[in-house]
């Protein structure tokens, strides 16, 4: 979907068009959920954060600047909401690895399930900032520029965080016996 199509749907939403709302949610619910899932590691929390993300986006639709991409805006909300959730979790007591959902679901093969769990465990070791850049780069395939826009940091910072985060991930995966 192009930026113009997003913009047209947003304008329709502002005029109360429920079908435009459903289209926009359908377009972005999966990537938003995946970002939240990789940031948090549990499906229940990722669903809650996805709902909050869309709710906040639509509550603040009047503040959305159409010069920027809608997905940059909604991903930024998703990342921020995920970090807020991580902070809430830390205040309540960190979940152990055994609480982290292993992967996709019943339709995912055992190998894919294990792979997903290993990667998630490595992600969980990263700081929130490092995890965000890894998730946006490797699980959402965004450019440095888009990641910088989403996280409101310079591209140079994106590069340096990515480099540090990747080194930590490599170490974690190798420590678990994963051959890269």
């Amino acid at each position, binding site marked *: 979907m192009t930026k113009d199509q997003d913009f047209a749907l947003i304008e329709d939403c502002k005029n109360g068009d429920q079908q435009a*709302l459903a289209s926009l949610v359908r377009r972005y619910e999966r990537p938003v959920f995946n970002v939240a899932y990789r940031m948090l590691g549990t499906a229940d929390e990722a669903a809650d954060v996805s709902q909050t993300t869309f709710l906040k986006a639509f509550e603040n639709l009047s503040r959305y600047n159409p010069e920027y991409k809608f997905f940059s805006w909604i991903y930024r909300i998703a990342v921020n909401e995920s970090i807020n959730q991580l902070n809430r979790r830390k205040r309540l007591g960190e979940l152990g690895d055994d609480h982290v959902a292993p*992967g996709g679901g019943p339709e995912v093969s055992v190998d894919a399930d294990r792979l997903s769990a290993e990667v998630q465990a490595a992600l969980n070791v990263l700081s929130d900032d490092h995890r965000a850049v890894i998730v946006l780069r490797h699980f959402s395939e965004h450019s440095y520029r888009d990641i910088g826009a989403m996280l409101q940091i310079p591209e140079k910072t994106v590069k*340096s965080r990515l480099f540090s985060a*990747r080194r930590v991930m490599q170490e974690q995966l190798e420590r678990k016996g994963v051959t890269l």
Partner: protein
Amino acid sequence: MNNDELELINAGVDDELDAAGRVRLDALLAGSEQARDLYDGLQRLGTFLEQVPPVEPPSALHGRIVNSISLPRPTAPGLKGLFNVIPGLLRYGLAAGLAVVVTMAVYQGGSQLNGVDYDKLVGTISARGAELDRFEFNQDGAQGSVRILERGDTYALEFELQARRPVLFDVDFADSGLRFDALAQADLNLDELALTKTTLSARTEGSQRFVVLMRPVAPGSPTQARISIALSQDGESIGRGVLDTGRDR
């Protein structure tokens, strides 16, 4: 390696280098085994992460999100202020005791096509005429029909509905060669109404019947009127259809 070289390697792995950067990276990799090891390791990590399958959101998430969001009331662009007064006028008209069946006399009083005559938005109506097409729906506790009838130069869209929860009707006759002329209703009030000369959006529930009257935009048109109707509940489509006059005029 210095920071610039490390960033160069990262940008190369991420395919974020321009042509000059690519040349610098190639030179670095050609001259440094350490750089090559780092580059290869990062590429392997990227390949490994690509194998991780995306996670499917719970099937209920879509409805959960849509139902949690309250959009503004539907409005007609540019005409919002003008038409927001219509439901009030409808209620006023009904309260004034216009319980008499007004039938086509409601709009036969010299309606002009250059604006909506509020006087025509009151009363009850029995839409007589020849039925040209009909669209019926029965889903999720909402059932009813939309008929298009013809009488002379006027078309009537007659809506009948029985619904436990609010149903949103979106009617688009922009491409039909017809334009809105008048609205009349029997039974209860509409919860929400927004209209322009070529679209109508109404939200209602319970037992409802209302009629939308339309006239050709220009004498002799339309050759064949097609009117799109979409019904939804809580943002989910429950029916969609096209009414067609099915004839050349």
